[in-house]
């Protein structure tokens, strides 16, 4: 009797269809998920300002200020002179290195200007700062953005913030 029992073996589990099941799961994930990596320009907006801070910005020496103006037909004026956007980076680098940490860049984009033109401008600014920071590590980012909307509204973007990649 005992010997007979020992001979009995547990039948093997049929796992042939596990592959099919996992395939279905795999396909489900492939369909439902997206793999596109999100990339973009990280920027830091300033906090809402008080009245005093706004005035502070308007009292900046002219020699330490660079104005970037984007017109409705997407043309870039740097200090009221037309400049192709490709040359903006070297121009900014030269300006920031010359003036140092006291510099201020003022941006004024027309409401009708296209987002693309604005983005290219921002891209050049980031590139310029990245280059400058190779030399001067702690160069603060001083950008003031004004809008020609109803209210004169000043926006300092990324003041003193490390923009490259932002915080983790």
């Amino acid at each position, binding site marked *: 009797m005992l010997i007979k029992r020992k001979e009995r073996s547990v039948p093997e589990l049929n796992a042939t269809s596990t592959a099919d099941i996992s395939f279905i799961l*795999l396909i489900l994930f492939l369909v*439902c998920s997206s793999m596109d*990596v999100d990339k973009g320009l990280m920027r830091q907006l300033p*906090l809402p300002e008080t009245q005093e801070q706004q005035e502070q910005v308007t009292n900046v020496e002219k020699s330490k200020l660079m104005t970037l103006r984007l017109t409705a037909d997407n043309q870039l004026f740097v200090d009221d002179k037309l400049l192709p956007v490709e040359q903006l980076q070297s121009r900014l680098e030269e300006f920031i290195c010359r003036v140092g940490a006291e510099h201020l860049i003022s941006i004024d984009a027309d409401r009708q200007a296209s*987002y693309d033109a604005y983005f290219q401008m*921002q891209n050049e600014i980031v590139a310029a700062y990245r280059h400058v920071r190779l030399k001067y590590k702690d160069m603060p980012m001083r950008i003031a953005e004004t809008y020609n909307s109803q209210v004169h509204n000043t926006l300092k973007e990324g003041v003193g913030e490390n923009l490259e990649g932002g915080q983790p």
Partner: protein
Amino acid sequence: MRISRRRLHKVPALNTAALPDLIFTVLFFFMIVTHMRKDVVKVQYQVPTGTELSRLTKKSAVSYIYIGSYHGETRIQLNDKFASVDEVQDYIRTERSQMLPEDQQQMTVSIKADKDVPMGVITDVKQSLREVRAIRINYSASQKENN
């Protein structure tokens, strides 16, 4: 003699026992690398191209604002529905309240806007984001290819 010998040879059955493991590995790879699609994007947009881009990390702390054209009109899309600029603030507030406390500090708003959207809309959105103190923003873009 020879012929009969050959006939006796049997091709051994392919062992597929490891196949599920293999597929599971691929499955886990995809589960880690990809993320679930959240919104159905209704507006059409083509992001600008840039060279100084950084990758958007920490997906759980990111909210998206889509700005693009829908039947030739510039529209803002939040979650699955169209919205006006005034609704952006409420949207950010609800998004923030749903986040984990540690994510709230790092909340990033990704603006996925079409190239040809006028700056006025972007400016308005930015101003509303400022007012609700969602100050970390990301202008979504794709990498410019160097030809």
